[in-house]
């Protein structure tokens, strides 16, 4: 790796870390989503300063060029990232579903209590569930 390449890659990684930290500081990004980006930036940094590790890894996985290892690595990181986001979206979908249903039912109860619609039927008593 030429010194020029090293400086460029280091700057990119540093800029990335600064941006992530700043986003967390401004509360645009939550801490639980920031670690994965910080790890990515650290990985770039590691590869720049310990190029021999990258070469060792390249030999270990049977690749010829270190660039191949880099491509594989970055693809894997991106896949992991999108999977992580899909998991969060799934979790949020269930939470939004439950909140939506609860909001709809509470709004119904509230409108019944307020007696907004005189034409609507008397609300069923919120009675304790029958046995069995």
């Amino acid at each position, binding site marked *: 790796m030429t010194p020029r390449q090293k400086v460029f890659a280091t700057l990119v990684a540093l800029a990335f870390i600064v941006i992530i930290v700043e986003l967390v500081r401004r509360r645009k990004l*939550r801490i*639980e989503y920031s670690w994965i980006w910080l790890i990515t930036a650290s990985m770039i940094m590691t590869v720049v300063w310990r190029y021999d590790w990258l070469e060792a890894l390249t030999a270990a996985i049977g690749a010829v060029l270190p660039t191949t290892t880099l491509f594989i690595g970055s693809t894997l990181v991106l896949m992991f990232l999108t999977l992580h986001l899909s*998991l*969060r979206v799934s*979790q949020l979908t*269930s*939470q*939004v*579903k*439950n909140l*939506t*249903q*609860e*909001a*709809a*039912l509470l*709004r*119904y109860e509230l409108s019944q209590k307020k007696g907004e*619609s005189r*034409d*609507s*039927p008397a*609300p*069923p*008593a*919120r*009675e*304790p*569930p*029958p*046995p*069995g």
Partner: protein
Amino acid sequence: MNSRHDTVVIIPARNEAAFIGRVLHTLRDQHPDADIVVVNDYSTDRTAEIARAFGVHVVDLPLHGGYGVTIQTGIKFALRFGYRHAVTFDADGQHDAAEIETILGPCRRGETDLCVGSRYLHGGYPTGWIKRCGVWLFGALARLFIGKPVTDPTSGFKAFNRRAMRLYAADNLPDRFPDADAIIMAHRAGLRIGEVPVRMFPPPDDDPMHGGVKAVYYAFNMLFSIAMTVLRRDRINLEEERPAEASERAGRIGAAP
């Protein structure tokens, strides 16, 4: 229908202004004492307004949830207000109000927990070949896993007792299209499932849920959902919660990983 507050008819509705008036009119005519709740899935037309004019309960979802979420909201309504039985009934006029007692019968007599109204059990219902393939496939899968025939796995005309309602209100319910997968899940949770023949009318427009590209999506979704239902070992509590447990559960929010 007998005593008030024993049974509620749940009508999921999204943009059904053209049909819901006639459906509610027929229901009111044939079951004047029935409790009816229309769960309005964020309609952009006059669905909710028309329903309110009939003096039925109307629950408005604050955003578009889809069929499964709408049905589940109705089930949660029935559980919350202490109904012993619930019937799900389509808003587009496919289901026959005169058959409500038919599907409620087995639940009332304590023979089943969940009773599905089947339009195919006695034949004669006109169906396109795509839907017929789907009905055969998912019916066969349901039969494989629950050990008895399910002739109409996509029927939305179902009767529930409280145990069945608890299953359909559970977080684990496949809430996209709770059809054959939900029936298999109900069986695995220990519910008794029955099927009775009912008369149904052809849908006014081709069933939007099961046609064209959506049919392929539905089939994939359902096959995968059935496979997952069979692989999971869900434990769903079908017994009544004590109020303390209910409030504790409501206060819990999913933690971040």
